[in-house]
């Protein structure tokens, strides 16, 4: 790649980053206003938080008494 193409790509990258950063910031602030807490785009959680089938055994459940 020649010099102008590299410079052009850098400029476009910087602009895209700025616009993207702003969009993320705006999304976060909107979520904060709605729920009074920050909502992350990426979060670490257990698969059980998403998939739950009736009958699944949970460590917290006390089945030994049954």
């Amino acid at each position, binding site marked *: 790649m020649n*010099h*102008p193409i590299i*410079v*052009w790509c850098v*400029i476009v990258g910087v*602009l895209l980053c*700025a*616009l993207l950063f702003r969009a993320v910031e705006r999304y976060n602030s909107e979520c904060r206003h709605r729920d009074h807490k920050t909502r992350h785009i990426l979060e670490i959680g257990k698969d059980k938080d998403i998939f739950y089938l009736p009958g699944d055994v949970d460590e917290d459940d006390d089945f030994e008494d049954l």
Partner: protein
Amino acid sequence: MTSRICNKAVDESALRGTAAFLAEYASLLSGCGATCIRIEKNARRLADSFGVEFDISIMPTHVYVSVWLDNPAEAVVAFRKTPACGISFNLNAKLSCLSWEVSDNNLGLTAATERFERIRRTKQSGKWETLFLTGLANASFCRLFGGDVIAMLIVFISTLAGYRLKQIMLEDKRDIRLTFLCASFFSAALSAGGHIFNIGSTPEIALGTSVLYLIPGVPYINSVSDLIYRHYLCGFSRFLDAAVLTVCLSTGLCAGMLLLGLKWF
């Protein structure tokens, strides 16, 4: 004797209210981009229908209104800072309508103030619609200057990006000159893509028209109108403001071209 003093106090209080209203009205009209002659005519129309004598002095950042009944020596003066609400033809038209409404229907100060407050709360046109329409308008400019469809598309995209950047920076209360410089730099750099990648047959027209949306046309036209009607201070102030913004956008355009190694002419 007591009743005369009471009447005088009531008169003065009413005059103060009228002067304050006229100053608010004139300053908002000035802030939304009206010419001095329009501000003067509209405010005089209101003053006539309120039955008071009136004089106005419009400065670049402030408006002074003086109001009296019979004796100019007993005039009440009100002055207001011009709000930075941005150019709005909608607000401008509504405020002009208000002056005619007050004049035609002989509305009192209370009714006029109520309607004025309603107009002041008018929401600005949606920013996404403005963004999209600005892009379309600038692409049309490109076509007018002889650009092909590819050049129009490049101008549309670079205008969207530059105008969005301008909106973001103005929302963050950044300096308007810096905002114009950055917006023109990024718009010019984006549209230079046509030149760099050899896309389309008229890349130079795309580059030239990509920053046209930043030209401060309304302040230029208003400055000429103000000069014609001998409002020299406002006229020169508006002209200089517009000239500074034009220099900023030219600097951004030149910086973009220089950085990308494009030939000037």
